[in-house]
C-alpha cells in the first residue's frame, strides 16, 4: 500500500535494480506472483527516457499515459518497496542468496506524504529564478509530488564562523521579503545591525560571484535588512525563548561573545545573567568601535532585544572571583573577558603620558572622557584598532594623523574599506617603518623610526620586515597611539586564575569548558584578539556546550543539510556581468567633523539589485519557508538524513547494469539481467525481457514469498444510508480561498440528509484520510461525498490517475476499511480555476460540482459482487521448449501442471516439425506428462476451464484454472486478434501472452522473434504465476448485471463483447438469457449501451444515472429529493 515508510522495509526481498519499462514489467510479474520486492533506482522515479531519445517529450507522450495505471499499481503494491534516489552500497553472498546494503539519499520531500499542493513552490523565494529548487515532477510522471534540488552548503554559509545562512537571506531580500530575511539572519546571529556594519565578512571572500565580476555585498545586505526594520518603525526583536528551565548561567563580559552566548542560552530557556564591569554594555563593540562606524542606538537596541528575551544584565559589576558565582547558585559560568589590555612596544619613552594604547584611547573616547586631541598624532600598528584610533583622533581635532606600519599596505590586517575611508579622511600612512624610541622629557616631542625592508615570508605568509641599518629618522609627534595588539586584562580576576596559559589565554580542555567543570570560556580570552563574528561564534559554541553540560547530553547529533556528490550550481557565463553596489557614504570633509555614522547603507532598489546578483550556489537556500507551509503535511524536512537499508535477497533482477557497482555480478548465480537494448529495440521487446527476467527470478525462489490464503475480504464499514457526509479537501489551502470553501461547507450542511460536512486539510494525506474515516465511523455516515482531486472511488487506475488520487483511495478503502461503494468523489481541484476566477465564480462552480455529486449519491450501489476461488492447476498444450520451461518453473512454484506434448486441433493434421520433435518429459512432483492428444475445444473462464481432449482414443475432460497454448498451430483455439479492432488491446495491457480471455494464454510467433524460447517460457511462467497468485480473483467492479425478466435473448450483447464475457444461459423458464462472466468482463459497459431493452445495467455508470443526470444538469434548479 503506502510502503515507503522506514519500518515497513522487509527483511528479505528480491532486489530489482533500475528504472525503465522492463523493470516496471518485471516488478509487476514478481509482485503479483507473491514475491516481496525491493525496487531501487538512483533516478527520481522509475520511468526512463527511452533509448535514443533525449527527453520524454520526444517519446510519444501517449505511451507514458498508457503506462500510468501499471506504474501506479506496481509502485503502490503491498509487496513492493519502491525506493528512488537510492543506490547499492554493497552486495555480498550470504547463504543461497545475497546480503544487499542500500543507501537512500536524504528524502527531503517525502513521496508518501507530499500532496502536490505546491504551496512550498509558491513561498520559495527562488521560484522565479532560472533554477527554482522546488519543481513539480514533470507531467509525464504519475505523481504530483514535488522535487527539491539541494546541493552542498553554500560557500558563504560555510565561510561564516557563525554559520549564518547568507544565501537564504540574500534570496529573500531579492524577493523583497525583508522581514523574513531578518528572521533567517537572527536564527544564527542576534546582532544583524551590528554585524552588518562591522563584520569582516569572510562570506564575501568565499563568494563565487567573484568568478564572474565581484563578490556580492553580503554584509551590506545584512545591514540593509536590519535598517529596513528600523525604517519600518519596528524595534529589533528576537525569536522568543523556548520553555523556561531552572538552571542559572552567569556570563562574565557583555562583548560579542558574551552577548551571543547569552542569546543562545536564553533561546534554550536558561536563566542568564551577564556581568559587565563597565558602566555600559557591549564590551569591545562599544569600547573598541567608533560610533561613526557603529551608531550607539543600533548597539543599544540590539542589546535591548537580547535583554527582552529575559537575559539579566548587571553593569558596573566586575567579577572578582569565579567560585563565588558558583556558590551563588550559577550552574555554569562563561568567561568572555575579551582582550582589552594594549600590548606595549617595549621601547624607551613609552611611559610618557601622551603615549596611549589604542584600546585605552578608544575607551576614553567612547566613554566620553577624552573629547579633544590637539596636535600631531602618530599611530603605530596596522590593524583595525589602529585605523579606528587614527580616525577617532582626526575627529577629536588632531591636525595631522599618521599611521606607521612596519610592513606593506597589502599586509595590513585592517579591512580594505576601513583603510580606504581613513585615506579619504586624510589619515597619512607610512609603511615599512617601526618605532625605535619615543623622544621627549615630560611630553612627547618626536618618535624615532627605523626603515624596514621585506625579507622572506613568515608563518603568516607575509614577508618578514627586517630593519635597515642606519635608516633611523625622527618624526615629530605630540601623541603616540600604540595599536599593536591586545591581551586579556586579568587584573580584576586577580592573578590567581588557574586555567590560563603563559600568553594569558584560557585553555579549554573539553569543547569550550575549562579544567573546572561548569566553567566555560569564549571569545578573545580563548583565541586572542579576533573579530566580532569570530567571538560570537565562540559564544555560540560555548552556549551549546553549556546546554549540553547542564542537560547531560553527551553527543549532539550534527545537522546534515547538504549531501556529498551534489555540487554547486554552475557559475553563470561571463557575459552576465553586473556591477557590485557599494553603499553611499557621507563626504569625507563633512564626516571627519563628528561621530555620526558615515555610511548610508543600501536603498531598497539597490539591495534587491545586489541580492539578485547572487548565484544561489546551493540551489535550495534553506530559508525554510517551505517547511513552514508544509507543517501540517510534514512532507518537507530539510534535515532528513540519508538512510541505510540492509536486507537478504534470494535473487536479483537487474534492469540497468549502470546501477550495479560491479558489472561482473551479472554473471553470478541468481542474478538476472533484463538485457541491454539499442535504439531499434521496440517497447514490447523491453517488456518481454522484463517479464522473462522476472520468470527466472521466480524460478530461483520457489519457496520464497507467500501466497495469500483465505478470503481477502475484510468487513467494510457500512453506516446508515440515510446519513450523508460531505468532505471537502482544502489541499493544504490551495484548493480555493478559505471563504469559498467555508461557504461551500455551509451550503453542503444545508442539503437534506447531510449529517456532517467538514473541511479536510488534505484527503490524500494519511491523517486527512484518517479524519474522514473517523467522522464517517463516528456519525455512521452511509453515503459520502469527497470533493478533492480524485475523480472516482473505483478500484482500478485509469490513465488520468495520479499517485495522489490513488492514495486517497488506498488510504480510505484499503487501509481504513471504508466501503468504496458508499463514496462519491469529484475532482474539484482541476476545474476550479483558483487564481483565475473570482471567488463568486469559484463558489458557483464548486456548488455545481457539489450538487451534481449529491445527485449522484442516489445511484450509489454495490460495486463488486463476488470472488472466484482460484486453484493452481495449469494445462499446457504443446511440449515445445517454451512449454517445457514454463512447466518446470511452474512445477517449482507448486503448481499442478499437465503438459500435453503433442496435440492437434480436431480435424487438423499434426505439423511435421511437432511430430518429429523429441519428447522431453518434465520430471517433477506436480507434473503430469501426456504425450499425445487431440483437442476438441476449450470452454470456461479463469479458474474453471474445461478442455475436451481425446487421449489414446478416449475422450477426457480436463479441468484447469489456467490454459496455456505454446505451439503455434494451436493458436486458433484462442480468440483471434483483429476481432473488433482488438490489436491495440494487447499494446495497452502490456501482456504479450494475453488473449482477450483472461486465463487463456498463448505464445505468438512474433514473441519468439523477440526473445529465445527459454526466455519466453520463463516469461510465460511469470505471467501464469502472477495471474494465479491471488487466491481469489475478484469480479470486475463495474461488470454488468442482467435482469432476466427483461432480457429477450437477442444476443447483441454477446455479439459486441470482445472478451467473451457475455454468454447465454437457460433461465428457469427454459429461455435463453444473457449471462455475464464477471471474471472475463473488463467493465466497459458496451453491452449495457447495446441492450435494446435495458435488461443490462452496470454499477456506477448505471442506466438510471445516465437517464437522470441529463435532465438534472439542464434543469437542475430544483434540489433533487431522495
Amino acid at each position, binding site marked *: 500500500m503506502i510502503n515507503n515508510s522506514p519500518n515497513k522495509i522487509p527483511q528479505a526481498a528480491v532486489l530489482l535494480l533500475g528504472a525503465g519499462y522492463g523493470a516496471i514489467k518485471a516488478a509487476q510479474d514478481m509482485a503479483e506472483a507473491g514475491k516481496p520486492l525491493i525496487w531501487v533506482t538512483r533516478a527520481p522515479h522509475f520511468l526512463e527516457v527511452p533509448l535514443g531519445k533525449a527527453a520524454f517529450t520526444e517519446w*510519444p507522450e501517449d505511451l*507514458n*499515459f498508457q503506462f500510468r495505471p501499471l506504474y501506479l499499481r506496481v509502485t503502490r503494491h503491498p509487496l513492493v518497496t519502491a525506493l528512488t534516489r537510492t543506490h547499492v552500497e554493497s552486495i555480498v553472498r550470504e547463504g543461497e542468496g545475497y546480503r544487499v546494503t542500500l543507501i537512500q539519499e536524504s528524502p527531503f520531500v517525502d513521496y508518501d506524504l507530499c500532496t502536490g499542493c505546491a504551496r512550498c513552490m509558491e513561498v520559495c523565494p527562488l521560484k522565479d529564478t532560472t533554477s527554482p529548487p522546488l519543481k513539480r515532477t514533470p507531467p509525464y510522471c504519475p505523481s504530483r509530488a514535488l522535487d527539491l534540488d539541494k546541493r552542498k552548503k553554500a560557500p558563504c554559509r560555510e565561510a561564516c564562523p557563525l554559520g549564518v545562512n547568507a544565501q537564504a537571506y540574500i534570496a529573500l531580500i531579492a524577493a523583497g521579503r525583508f522581514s523574513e530575511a531578518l528572521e533567517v539572519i537572527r536564527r544564527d546571529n542576534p546582532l544583524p545591525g551590528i554585524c552588518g556594519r562591522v563584520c569582516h565578512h569572510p562570506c564575501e571572500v568565499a563568494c563565487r560571484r567573484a568568478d564572474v565580476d565581484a563578490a556580492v555585498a553580503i554584509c551590506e545586505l545584512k545591514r540593509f535588512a536590519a535598517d529596513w526594520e528600523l525604517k519600518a518603525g519596528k524595534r529589533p526583536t528576537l525569536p522568543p525563548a523556548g520553555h523556561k528551565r531552572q538552571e542559572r548561567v552567569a556570563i562574565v563580559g557583555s562583548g560579542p561573545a558574551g552577548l551571543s552566548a547569552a542569546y543562545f542560552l536564553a533561546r534554550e530557556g536558561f536563566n542568564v545573567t551577564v556581568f559587565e564591569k563597565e558602566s555600559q554594555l557591549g564590551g569591545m563593540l562599544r569600547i573598541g568601535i567608533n560610533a561613526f562606524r557603529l551608531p550607539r542606538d543600533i548597539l543599544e537596541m540590539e542589546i535591548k532585544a537580547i535583554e527582552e528575551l529575559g537575559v539579566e544584565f548587571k553593569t558596573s559589576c566586575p567579577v572578582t572571583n569565579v567560585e563565588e558565582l558558583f556558590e551563588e547558585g550559577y550552574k555554569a559560568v562563561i568567561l568572555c573577558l575579551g582582550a582589552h589590555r594594549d600590548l606595549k612596544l617595549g621601547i624607551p619613552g613609552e611611559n610618557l603620558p601622551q603615549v596611549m594604547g589604542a584600546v585605552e584611547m578608544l575607551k576614553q573616547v567612547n566613554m566620553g572622557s577624552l573629547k579633544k586631541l590637539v596636535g600631531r598624532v602618530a599611530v603605530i600598528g596596522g590593524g583595525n584598532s589602529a585605523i579606528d584610533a587614527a580616525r577617532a583622533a582626526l575627529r577629536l581635532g588632531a591636525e595631522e594623523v599618521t599611521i606607521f606600519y612596519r610592513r606593506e599596505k597589502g599586509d595590513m590586517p585592517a579591512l580594505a574599506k576601513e583603510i580606504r575611508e581613513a585615506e579619504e579622511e586624510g589619515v597619512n600612512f607610512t609603511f615599512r617603518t617601526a618605532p625605535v624610541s619615543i623622544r621627549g622629557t615630560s611630553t612627547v616631542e618626536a618618535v624615532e623610526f627605523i626603515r624596514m625592508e621585506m625579507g622572506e615570508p613568515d608563518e603568516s605568509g607575509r614577508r618578514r620586515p627586517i630593519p635597515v641599518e642606519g635608516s633611523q629618522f625622527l618624526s615629530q609627534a605630540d601623541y603616540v597611539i600604540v595599536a599593536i595588539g591586545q591581551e586579556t586584562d586579568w587584573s580584576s580576576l586577580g592573578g590567581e586564575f588557574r586555567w590560563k596559559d603563559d600568553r594569558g589565554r584560557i585553555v579549554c580542555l573539553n569543547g569550550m569548558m575549562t579544567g573546572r567543570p561548569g566553567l566555560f570560556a569564549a571569545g578573545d580570552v580563548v583565541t586572542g584578539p579576533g573579530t566580532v563574528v569570530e567571538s560570537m561564534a565562540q559564544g555560540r559554541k560555548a552556549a551549546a556546550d553549556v546546554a549540553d553540560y547542564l542537560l547531560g547530553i553527551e553527543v549532539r547529533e550534527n545537522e546534515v543539510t547538504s549531501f556529498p556528490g551534489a555540487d554547486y550550481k554552475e557559475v553563470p557565463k561571463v557575459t552576465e556581468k553586473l556591477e557590485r553596489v557599494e553603499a553611499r557614504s557621507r563626504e569625507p570633509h563633512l564626516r571627519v567633523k563628528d561621530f555620526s555614522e558615515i555610511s548610508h547603507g543600501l536603498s531598497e532598489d539597490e539591495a534587491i539589485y545586489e541580492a539578485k546578483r547572487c548565484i544561489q550556489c546551493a540551489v535550495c537556500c534553506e530559508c525554510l519557508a517551505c517547511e513552514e507551509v508544509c507543517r501540517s503535511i510534514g512532507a518537507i524536512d530539510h534535515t532528513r538524513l540519508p538512510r541505510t537499508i540492509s536486507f537478504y535477497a534470494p535473487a536479483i533482477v537487474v534492469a540497468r547494469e549502470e546501477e550495479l557497482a560491479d558489472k561482473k555480478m551479472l554473471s553470478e548465480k541468481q542474478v538476472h539481467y533484463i538485457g541491454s537494448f539499442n535504439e531499434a529495440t521496440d517497447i514490447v521487446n523491453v517488456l518481454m525481457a522484463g517479464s522473462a527476467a522476472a520468470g527466472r527470478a521466480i524460478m530461483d525462489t520457489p519457496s520464497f514469498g507467500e501466497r495469500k490464503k483465505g478470503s481477502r475480504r475484510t468487513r467494510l464499514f457500512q453506516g446508515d444510508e440515510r446519513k450523508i457526509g460531505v468532505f471537502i479537501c482544502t489541499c493544504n489551502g490551495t484548493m480555493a480561498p478559505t471563504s469559498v470553501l467555508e461557504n461551500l461547507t455551509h451550503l453542503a450542511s444545508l442539503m437534506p440528509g447531510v449529517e456532517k460536512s467538514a473541511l479536510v486539510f488534505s484527503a490524500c494525506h494519511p491523517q486527512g484520510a484518517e479524519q474522514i474515516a473517523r467522522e464517517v465511523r463516528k456519525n455512521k455516515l452511509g453515503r459520502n461525498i469527497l470533493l478533492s482531486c480524485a475523480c472516482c472511488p473505483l478500484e482500478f487506475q485509469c490513465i488520468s490517475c495520479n499517485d495522489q488520487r490513488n492514495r486517497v483511495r488506498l488510504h480510505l478503502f484499503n487501509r481504513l476499511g471504508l466501503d468504496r461503494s458508499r463514496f462519491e468523489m469529484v475532482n474539484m481541484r482541476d476545474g476550479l480555476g483558483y487564481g483565475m476566477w473570482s471567488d463568486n465564480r469559484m463558489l458557483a462552480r464548486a456548488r455545481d460540482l457539489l450538487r451534481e455529486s449529491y445527485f449522484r449519491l442516489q445511484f450509489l450501489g454495490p460495486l463488486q459482487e463476488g470472488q472466484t476461488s482460484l486453484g493452481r492447476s495449469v494445462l499446457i498444450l504443446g511440449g515445445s521448449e517454451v512449454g517445457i520451461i514454463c512447466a518446470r518453473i511452474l512445477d517449482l512454484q507448486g503448481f499442478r501442471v499437465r503438459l500435453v506434448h503433442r496435440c492437434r486441433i480436431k480435424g487438423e493434421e499434426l505439423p511435421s516439425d511437432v511430430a518429429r520433435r523429441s519428447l522431453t518429459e518434465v520430471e517433477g512432483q506436480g507434473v503430469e506428462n501426456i504425450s499425445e492428444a487431440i483437442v476438441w475445444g476449450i470452454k470456461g473462464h479463469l479458474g474453471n476451464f474445461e478442455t475436451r481432449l481425446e487421449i489414446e482414443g478416449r475422450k477426457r475432460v480436463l479441468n484447469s484454472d489456467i490454459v496455456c497454448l505454446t505451439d503455434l498451430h494451436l493458436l486458433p483455439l484462442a480468440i483471434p486478434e483483429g476481432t473488433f479492432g482488438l490489436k491495440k488491446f494487447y499494446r495497452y495491457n502490456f501482456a504479450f501472452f494475453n488473449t482477450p480471455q483472461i486465463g487463456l494464454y498463448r505464445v505468438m510467433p512474433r514473441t519468439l522473434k523477440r526473445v529465445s524460447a527459454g526466455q519466453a517460457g520463463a516469461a510465460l511462467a511469470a505471467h501464469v504465476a502472477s495471474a494465479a497468485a491471488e487466491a481469489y480473483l475478484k469480479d470486475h467492479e463495474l461488470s454488468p448485471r442482467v435482469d432476466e425478466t427483461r432480457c429477450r435473448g437477442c444476443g447483441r450483447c454477446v455479439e459486441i463483447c470482445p472478451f467473451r464475457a457475455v454468454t447465454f444461459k437457460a433461465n428457469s423458464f427454459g429461455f435463453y438469457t444473457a449471462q455475464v462472466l464477471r471474471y472475463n468482463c473488463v467493465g466497459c*459497459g458496451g453491452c449495457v449501451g447495446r441492450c435494446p431493452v435495458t435488461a443490462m445495467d452496470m454499477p456506477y455508470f448505471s442506466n438510471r444515472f445516465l437517464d437522470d443526470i441529463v*435532465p438534472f444538469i*439542464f434543469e437542475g434548479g430544483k434540489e433533487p429529493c431522495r
Partner: protein
Amino acid sequence: MSVKILTICCNWSPWACLNQAQMAGFVLPENLKVIRVMCIGRINQALILKAFEFGADGVLLLECHDEDCRYGPGPAVGHGNVQRVRKLLDLLGIDQHRLVEKSFGAHEKTELAQAIEDFADTIERLGPITQKERKADHYGGCET
C-alpha cells in the same frame, strides 16, 4: 439566453486529456457540462437524443482514437450512434452541427481545449434550439 452544451467523455484518453488541459490551466466554457462514461460505446442513441430533449443545444462526444480504444468496439459504436442520431436530428429540423464526435489521444490537451472552444463557438453562433423543449416531470428519480 445562453446556450447549453453537453459533453459525453470517455474515461480513457479524452478524460486524461481533459484532466491535463485543466491542470495546465485551460479554462472550460462555463456552459459546458461533462458526463463521464467508461467508454463511448457505453452510451446509446437515446441518451444523445435525451440531451437534446432536455435542453442541450449541442452535444459533443469525446472518444479515443479508433485504434486506441481500450475495449475495442467503443469508437465504432460511438460513430454509428452519431450517424443515426444525426439522421433523426435532421428529421427533427435540428442542425447536424450540434452533434459532434471527436477523438483524442491522452497527450493532445491543446487540441482538445481548442476543439471544445470551437464547438462552443459553433453552438453560440447557431444559438439555442428553437424546437419546443420538454420539461422534466420526473427527473431526479423523485418517483421512487
